């Protein structure tokens, strides 16, 4: 991405939470910023990289990104790191010791919780890390607060030499609202000073740092008691007072405009005294937080009588239509009737793979090979679990396809003794956390066929660059990983490594069928780019000759969204069996000529599109150079 001239100070901009944090990172004089993409956090680093005078990178995983940021903070420079909630699980090994050494240059870690599971494998509450690692947690309620809290986070971090967690949720990251911005204040790096008692965490040194961490906890709690980020807004209806944090604050204000509210922006450590004072002002207190009852449980342990998850859900967002009925029930009032009519019944529309996606060929082939157990991973290719392929049997965490495939192999029971174990993983996921699993599989003599789908992009999050495609976050050339050499170096035998074009179905089918029979580790690398990145080249589109289509439906099994059914019929076969027929057409305006549907078409009904106007052909490219 090219650097742009940032908007001038005092501008009122419509920014998402992600964009607001990125702006604050730049203004705070951050020198080093690192992240691995992950919804809903991705845009933070994308936007940071558009600002001048700082270094940004896509790291190979969240742990490495945090370590890069820690190094920069030790060097005395301000550093930034961001990730989605599950990313902190990966990075936490570094965090749990970082809290003992603390930082020199300020370090803010923005964690984006996918509350409501828009694009994640679980829903977890990152505020736990504040408790677990004894670090402060700031919780913005909109973009303006995300911006201000990021700036404040650097002051806090440097004053107490502690990393600061900025806890965001999808409704902060992806909501656009108005932000008044300032200007960049350059920072002078303090420089790295050797201090082994602090920066070399061997037992003898670490033991001495632990009491300092506890002392810091007490200081931070005292600070939270007087922080302007925590404040009470009085109200006339004192039947219920609300303690709220993050986006839940906005939902409370929307739902109960007359109720007293204690807003916690500096929510960890919890300011107990402030909460006690607030509780004395109202008849009863309800704690409204997404998602776990953290503040609530700590207040209860302090002997405060508060209500929380007894009446509010432990899962998902706490929008007004969740809060209003819950509070009405608590007060014994008639539950307000939401004006909504019952939703109309419409078919589900799950996400699909793109037209001509190289993964289509892989999953079509896998769906045709029998007796497989397919250990899956995280990325676009997780969609292979869906229709029409149903060719992915597990998905747990980044890189898990490798270790789990080995476990499925070693742990197989008598009933599965003839099953072939296949693992499917994308290039970026493999580099993130899959390599170690493959090494383990080779070292422990597993019997697994690995499909490494190299599409040269982090596809699901929007095609970010990574070491697999040879470009860095700025789009500049960077050393590109050679996957065949890499897996060979991990110990996979040369004759068990195949690089295959996923659009050549017969070759792909034969390679998979042959390799699953070999009782050792094989790696099949597919080498065609994601259709959404610039490396992909469109070819001449196809169309269906209506008269020739026999309605067999083979092309539909490929799963390409450009193929549409025009009519259905039933046919009685000579053996008396009734079969369903589906006659098709191809939406030629979106077809890019990948040939995946052409190959299984027995009657040869799919031919190159012959448009009426020759201009369209020129626009699409003639395609002949690719044939």
């Amino acid at each position, binding site marked *: 991405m090219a650097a742009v001239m940032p908007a001038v100070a005092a501008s009122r901009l419509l920014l998402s939470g992600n964009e607001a944090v990125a702006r604050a990172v730049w203004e705070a004089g951050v020198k080093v910023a690192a992240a691995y993409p992950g919804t809903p956090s991705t845009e933070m680093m994308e936007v940071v990289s558009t600002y001048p005078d700082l270094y940004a990178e896509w790291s190979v995983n969240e742990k490495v990104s945090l370590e890069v940021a820690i190094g920069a903070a030790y060097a005395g420079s301000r550093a930034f790191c961001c990730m989605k909630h599950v990313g902190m699980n990966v990075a936490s090994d570094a965090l749990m010791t970082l809290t003992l050494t603390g930082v020199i240059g300020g370090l803010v870690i923005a964690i984006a919780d996918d509350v409501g599971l828009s694009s994640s494998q679980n829903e977890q509450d990152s505020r736990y890390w504040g408790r677990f690692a004894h670090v402060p947690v700031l919780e913005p309620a909109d973009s303006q607060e995300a911006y201000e809290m990021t700036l404040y986070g650097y002051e806090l971090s440097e004053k107490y030499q502690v990393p600061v967690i900025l806890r965001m949720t999808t409704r902060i990251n992806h909501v656009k609202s108005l932000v008044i911005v300032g200007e960049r204040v350059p920072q002078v790096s303090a420089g790295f000073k050797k201090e082994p008692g602090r920066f070399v965490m061997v037992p003898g040194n670490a033991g001495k740092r632990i009491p300092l961490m506890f002392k810091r906890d007490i200081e931070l709690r005292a600070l939270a008691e007087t922080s302007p980020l925590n404040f009470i807004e009085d109200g006339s209806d004192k039947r219920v007072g609300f303690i709220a944090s993050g986006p839940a604050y906005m939902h409370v204000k929307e739902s109960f405009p007359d109720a007293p509210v204690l807003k916690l922006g500096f929510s960890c450590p919890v300011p107990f005294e402030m909460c006690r004072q607030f509780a004395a002002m109202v008849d009863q207190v309800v704690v409204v937080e997404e998602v776990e009852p953290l503040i609530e449980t700590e207040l209860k342990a302090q002997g405060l009588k508060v209500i929380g998850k007894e009446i509010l859900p432990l899962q998902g967002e706490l929008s007004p239509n969740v809060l209003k009925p819950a509070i009405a029930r608590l007060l014994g009032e008639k539950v307000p009737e939401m004006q909504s009519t019952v939703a109309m019944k419409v078919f589900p529309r799950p996400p699909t793979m793109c037209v001509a996606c190289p993964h289509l060929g892989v999953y079509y082939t896998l769906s045709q090979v029998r007796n497989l157990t397919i250990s899956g991973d995280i990325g676009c290719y997780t969609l292979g679990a869906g229709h029409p392929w149903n060719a992915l049997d597990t998905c747990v965490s980044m890189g898990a396809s490798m270790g789990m495939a080995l476990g499925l192999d070693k742990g197989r029971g008598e009933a599965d003794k003839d099953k072939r174990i296949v693992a499917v993983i994308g290039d970026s996921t493999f580099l993130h956390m899959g390599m170690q699993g493959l090494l383990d599989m080779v070292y422990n003599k597993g019997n697994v066929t690995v499909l490494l789908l190299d599409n040269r992009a982090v596809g699901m999050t929007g095609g970010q660059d990574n070491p697999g495609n040879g470009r860095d976050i700025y789009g500049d050339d960077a050393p590109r990983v050679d996957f065949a050499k890499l897996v060979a170096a991990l110990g996979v035998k040369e004759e068990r490594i195949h690089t295959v074009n996923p659009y050549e179905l017969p070759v792909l089918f034969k390679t998979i069928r042959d390799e699953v029979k070999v009782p050792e580790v094989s790696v099949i690398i597919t080498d065609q780019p994601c259709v959404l990145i610039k490396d992909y080249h469109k070819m001449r589109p196809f169309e269906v000759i209506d008269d020739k289509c026999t309605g067999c439906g083979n092309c539909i099994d490929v799963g390409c969204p450009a193929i549409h*059914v025009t009519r259905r019929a039933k046919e009685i076969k000579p053996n008396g069996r009734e079969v369903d027929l589906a006659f098709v057409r191809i939406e030629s305006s979106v077809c890019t000529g990948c040939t995946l549907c052409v190959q299984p078409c027995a009657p040869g009904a799919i031919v190159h599109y012959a448009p009426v106007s020759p201009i369209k052909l020129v626009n699409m490219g003639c395609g002949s150079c690719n044939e």
Partner: protein
Amino acid sequence: MSENTNILVVGIGGQGVMTATEILAEAAIAFGHDAKKTEVAGMAQRGGVVSSHLRFGKKVLSPQITPGTADVLLGFESAETMRWQHMLRPDGITLMNTARLVPPVVELGLFDYPDDPLAEIKKVGRKVVAFDATSIAQELGDIRLGNTVMLGAIADHLPFSAEVLLDCVLKRFQRKGEKLVELNRRAFEAGRAAVGEAESAVA
């Protein structure tokens, strides 16, 4: 809070729903309102359901529209327009593109696409105006003008003048030359006219 205007824009990933809502938000701000825009995007890039919420007014708190409180539903696709009807106020209005984008699960025969989404919506008794934004864009020479047609369609159903929105739309194309600005102006006016004509036909 009821003094906010709630606009719901729906469609499928890749149709430009989020960009259209962002331009509507810019227009609301240009008019002097506070505004918040939100959607669940995530995997929406892959042909999934997208619903984008825009709320504006003196001060906006919660970014989400509560079911049953949307003033206008702008639908980029027929079945998606049906899907979100429960979000509308009883006297809210639906402005819908008649385009039908059939997903693979329907092609596979697992589910049915509704025969006549417009009729289904009318059956509930809500105000609805339908138009073919895709054809209008094609007539103007470029299917990509569809989004501007959609924005034109909503222009006379906002609590500020259509010109405020038009300015925000055209600003996006200024850097790309006068020709594109002019094409988008025509697309915007065509969308406006399509809804206007359909409404006067009903009246």
